[in-house]
């Protein structure tokens, strides 16, 4: 193709018209070291749906609540039982654990009432409470995050 200049606009125009007439979306002509490559819209259509379904995250993944959340390096204290969350032993009493409090494994951080029984919940980790995730009297399910702790 070296004898014919591929940059010859007239020739390229003709090719473009040809594409339009025939609704081509792509045209490529190579000859030795010469090459013409033309594209019209519609050539690259969106390729969606390549991600396998979300449903496939393994059901036990969420069953590892105490794993430190990568993004913030915090440890979560989760509820070991279903029940009602109480910050203190009585409405008058002071909260077992507030944001900023230092706790260790044996520190009681809250009470969860289940079937009229008050269950003291221990931190099981040591560090500083950075967030109390439940309100007083709130219902909590198994594995629900109660506190976030910075180790």
């Amino acid at each position: 193709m070296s004898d014919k200049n591929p940059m010859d606009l007239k020739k390229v125009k003709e090719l473009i018209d040809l594409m339009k007439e025939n609704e081509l979306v792509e045209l490529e002509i190579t000859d030795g070291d010469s090459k013409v490559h033309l594209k019209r819209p519609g050539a690259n259509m969106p390729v969606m749906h390549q991600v396998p379904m979300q449903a496939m995250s393994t059901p036990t993944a969420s069953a590892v609540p105490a794993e430190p959340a990568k993004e913030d390096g915090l440890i979560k204290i989760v509820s070991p039982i279903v029940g009602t969350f109480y910050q203190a032993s009585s409405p008058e009493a002071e909260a077992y654990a507030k944001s900023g409090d230092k706790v260790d494994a044996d520190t009681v951080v809250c009470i969860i009432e289940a079937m009229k029984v008050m269950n003291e919940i221990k931190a099981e980790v040591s560090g500083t409470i950075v967030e109390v995730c439940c309100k007083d009297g709130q219902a909590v399910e198994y594995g629900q995050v109660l506190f976030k702790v910075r180790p």
Partner: protein
Amino acid sequence: MFSRILIANRGEIALRIIRACHELGIEAVVVYSEADREASYLDIADEAVCIGPASPAKSYLNIPAIISAAEITDVDAIHPGYGFLAENAHFAEICNECGITFIGPDPESMRQLGDKVAAREIAKKARVPIVPGSEGEITNESEAVKIANKIGYPVIIKAAAGGGGRGMRVAHNDISLHKAFGAAKAEAEAAFKNGTLYIEKFIVEPRHVEVQVMADKSGNAIHFYERDCTIQRRHQKLIEESPCPVLDEKTREELCKSALRLVKEANYHSAATVEFLLDKDKNFYFIEVNTRIQVEHPVSELVTGQDLIKLQIKVAAGQTLDLRQRDIKHTGVAMECRINAEDPARGYAPNPGRVDKFIVPGGFGVRVDTHIYQGAIVSPYYDSMIAKLIVHQPTRQEAIATMKRALREFKIEPIKTTIPGQLAILSHNLFVKNQVDTSFIERHMG
């Protein structure tokens, strides 16, 4: 009527109960274990509460967790489904103590009918034929031998607290009886912490026939005819149908009326299944009562057009049955296949895992009850049933044809299921000709 019901179960029956609640305008709360976090029926429920890790003991059998969930979600009733806590009288008591209606019978009648020896007594009072055997428990082998010789061999030894075939032994003579007695006792103690045994005549080549009953709290009881569950593998039902294809009308009426007499004698309310053995000469003998809704209840729903779960909820709420026995008509033939994630080619070994392809059959005469969807995971923690395929047609021949085409349509990949086994049974000459008994699978499908 209830405004909110908690469903203390999982899988297809949890979904089945959600559907009934919503059709009755009742909110449905489901509890779930971490293994069921991805279950699609959680989205359909009005509320879902995680009650523990995968292990059933820590979740679906965890009474404190379930009661707590009921309290924090403020429900007025609990439906136990089948299995798990459905026949746990202690759980029923706790529900009642907490002011939550247990959707099932009273703990007393549950205990009474759950104990086979006590149940036999009630059956006798109600003039319901029973299998000849020991009057009550047997304490020692010599007593067992005496009775065995009185009622004649073969005999079967059973655990009073037993179920699912555990603690059962058949003996054909004194020698085998001696062996069987010790083994059964040990097995019963291990399985049920209760070594109490009883002995009865072993019915040869029996069919398993059961009558579906519903009783309200005002003493009204109606039946929904019988189901034939003769096709079993190790006491696990694989195919159920209604009507029983070998019963004549007269025997059938006696059978159903016997079941009603029995539940009335026990002052029973809620759904119940009264199980019988039917021998070659069409004599039926009472075996036991299941004080729960059963897996195969849709078979009776299709032939009667009645929604048994809705009725069970209504009577639990104290409503009197608005149906008379004459309103319950039996139309056509219904048949159910339990599709389990088991490999028939490998001795029905469980085959859990992720379901990458799931195309459900449909069309005329086909009902499917399943909690599985494409992308779901069949958990290894729980029983392997992933779907119930139920068909309804005017005749048994047509029902079999519809069941076969529906089973062939059912695409479940890559896990193995019982479908090939069920297709083989449905094509088997003896099944088609109604010449089967409870030993059919072991004898002809080994």
